[in-house]
């Protein structure tokens, strides 16, 4: 299944409708979970006052939070111990039903009065807390073998995406590959074709870089009207990990590049045998074959045991399960760089090899479907990233782009990496439109959707599909409810 279906309007609507449906199913669950940023008060009894609580008239962050979703999650993070415990008790999952990635353990009344779980009981590999429920959710394509799942950005803190929450896009399922037998072949316009085992690959000097990967289809539902409700739906095809591996230049030097070689085909060993052509200059400059992600081996759905990292390029070029590299004088014109991942303009011409991801930012909290619990202080926070280098600045507007103020940037500010921004805000209870706009170190300014459409046109409900990097708008209504809107 292609990311979009170009077949007909009816089909497009159908597919986008099923994406909306998938999100709604996810939201329905989240609204009943007090730990979720989407928790809805209608699903739970009002808070009983907690002993010693002085919630009235103090900083809203200090209040016990089992009734409002946005603040509820803030409370978990801020971990005011009273509020934290109140939540733990109201969200105890039913026996035996831990969320994915967690193990169910009974919750004592008072964890100071009874020993905890024995060390080693986890078999030596830890799991996340049973109270943490965020998951990627998948677009309900007709076949789950070609689909994608999105990162819950609204839960994220810092800049690293937990490996298990890193977005994925697979075209033929997730391959299972034994590293003991896996080989990478390098051939074509080289002096000595070679094959490398994983042991060979790991013997080379390695590098590590913290980099974002973004699918160029991120946000494709949002071209003509606000469609998905949450930031996970509108922006969840971007994630950041620390990747470790071997520079492609080292590998290419090992085989000896013949003069005249200009492109290389990188091929995956999955059932889609995914391929993309990469310019050799890019390969020599900063591409690498990664076997490590966030301090351990790459996850299967991220391409275990070996994935191409092409810093700043669209996600599809980061070929997973790499088994072969072929050098050539010309691009191979594979299906994924002709039929897909080309940006069709109203003129009928399509931009090809639009590889670099432009600068983009989004407010992750507060974001769509959260509710503010009343006027007062809120920290607006989000992420900014650029395929062309470092983020230089992020501005935040709370009046729909009429006025802008600089947000604080959390270090480290790394090139081609997500940068966390924060902006203190006192909500006066009136309607507000929240936006963020980033500038990268090349001086590129993130456009409004209107500006982007002026350049790319809007030829069909999902326009040119790929490379939507416009400013996102979240409307806060007088009730504090946050929703996805188009405002430019």
């Amino acid at each position: 299944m292609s990311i979009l279906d170009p077949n007909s309007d009816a089909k497009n609507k159908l597919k986008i409708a099923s994406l909306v449906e998938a999100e709604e199913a996810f939201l329905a669950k989240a609204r009943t979970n007090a730990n979720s940023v989407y928790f809805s008060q209608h699903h739970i009894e009002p808070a009983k006052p907690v002993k010693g609580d002085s919630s009235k008239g103090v900083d809203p962050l200090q209040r016990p939070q089992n009734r409002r979703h946005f603040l509820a999650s803030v409370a978990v993070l801020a971990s005011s111990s009273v509020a934290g415990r109140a939540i733990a008790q109201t969200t105890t999952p039913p026996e035996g039903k831990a969320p994915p990635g967690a193990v169910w353990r009974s919750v004592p009344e008072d964890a100071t009065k009874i020993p905890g779980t024995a060390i080693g009981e986890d078999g030596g590999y830890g799991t996340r807390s049973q109270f943490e429920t965020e998951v990627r959710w998948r677009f309900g394509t007709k076949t789950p073998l070609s689909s994608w799942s999105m990162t819950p950005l609204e839960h994220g803190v810092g800049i690293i995406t937990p490996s298990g929450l890193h977005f994925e896009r697979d075209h033929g399922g997730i391959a299972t590959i034994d590293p003991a037998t896996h080989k990478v072949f390098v051939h074509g316009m080289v002096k000595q074709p070679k094959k490398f085992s994983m042991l060979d690959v790991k013997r080379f000097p390695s590098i590590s870089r913290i980099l974002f990967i973004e699918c160029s289809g991120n946000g494709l539902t949002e071209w003509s009207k606000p469609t998905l409700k949450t930031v996970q739906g509108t922006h969840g095809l971007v994630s950041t990990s620390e990747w470790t591996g071997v520079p492609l230049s080292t590998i290419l030097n090992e085989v000896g590049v013949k003069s005249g070689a200009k492109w290389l085909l990188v091929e995956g060993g999955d059932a889609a045998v995914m391929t993309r052509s990469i310019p050799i200059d890019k390969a020599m400059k900063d591409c690498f074959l990664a076997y490590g992600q966030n301090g351990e081996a790459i996850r299967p759905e991220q391409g275990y045991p070996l994935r191409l990292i092409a810093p700043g390029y669209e996600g599809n070029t980061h070929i997973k399960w790499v088994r072969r590299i072929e050098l050539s004088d010309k691009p191979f014109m594979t299906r994924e760089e002709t039929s897909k991942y080309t940006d069709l303009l109203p003129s009928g011409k399509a931009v090809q090899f639009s590889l670099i991801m432009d600068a983009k930012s989004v407010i992750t909290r507060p974001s769509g479907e959260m509710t503010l619990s009343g006027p007062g202080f809120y920290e607006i926070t989000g992420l900014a990233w650029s395929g062309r280098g470092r983020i230089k600045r992020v501005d935040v507007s709370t009046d729909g782009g009429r006025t802008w103020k600089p947000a604080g940037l959390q270090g480290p500010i790394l090139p081609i990496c997500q940068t966390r921004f924060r902006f203190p805000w006192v909500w006066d209870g009136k309607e507000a439109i929240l936006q963020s706009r980033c500038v990268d170190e090349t001086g590129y300014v993130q456009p409004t959707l209107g500006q982007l459409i002026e350049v790319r046109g809007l030829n069909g409900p999902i326009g040119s599909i790929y490379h939507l990097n416009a400013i996102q708008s979240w409307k806060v209504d007088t009730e504090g409810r946050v929703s996805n809107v188009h405002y430019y």
Partner: protein
Amino acid sequence: MFTTTKLFLQVTACGALFALNTYAVGADPVRYGFGEPASAHDLQDFVSSLPDGRDLPAGSGTISRGKQVYDEKCASCHGQKMEGGVGDRLLGGRGTLVNNDPKKAPVKTVESYWPYATTLFDYIKRAMPFYTPGSLTNDEVYSVTGYILSEANILKGDEPITAESLAKVAMPNRDGFIPDHRPDHFKPADKHPRLR
């Protein structure tokens, strides 16, 4: 012994270089000698294709054989008339690419959008049929490629379908692609934004 020392010295020099630029992966003078030569035998089963037909495997097919292959192995997902199903629609859409209507989607198919016939061979060979990829012989792939192109009114006649013939096919949208001219430079944003 001598070579080991030499390699060691080179590696040390190279290490100093790396230290200057954390991400430097530029010219790397060192050969580590890891890995083994790949033989022609090792590489014989890999398939890739260049638009001029280089790299495509030997073999040939016919349109009539291609119809059999299609009906048996493709129609269940792509439809009797290639109108699409679980798999993409493969035919139609010519004349829909020039389009400024936000309500109407352009129809991008093999017929209307794909610039090279070699890509069709390559993609079917590597990824189709979806549940049993890599199960078709090269002749079957040449055949079904030819059949799709003939249903698209791109190929006619009884000529055998081969690497050379696919390279010569003039796809309708062959000249439909332009290079990337980004980054765009955006004018200052509208000072009177509103809800849309």
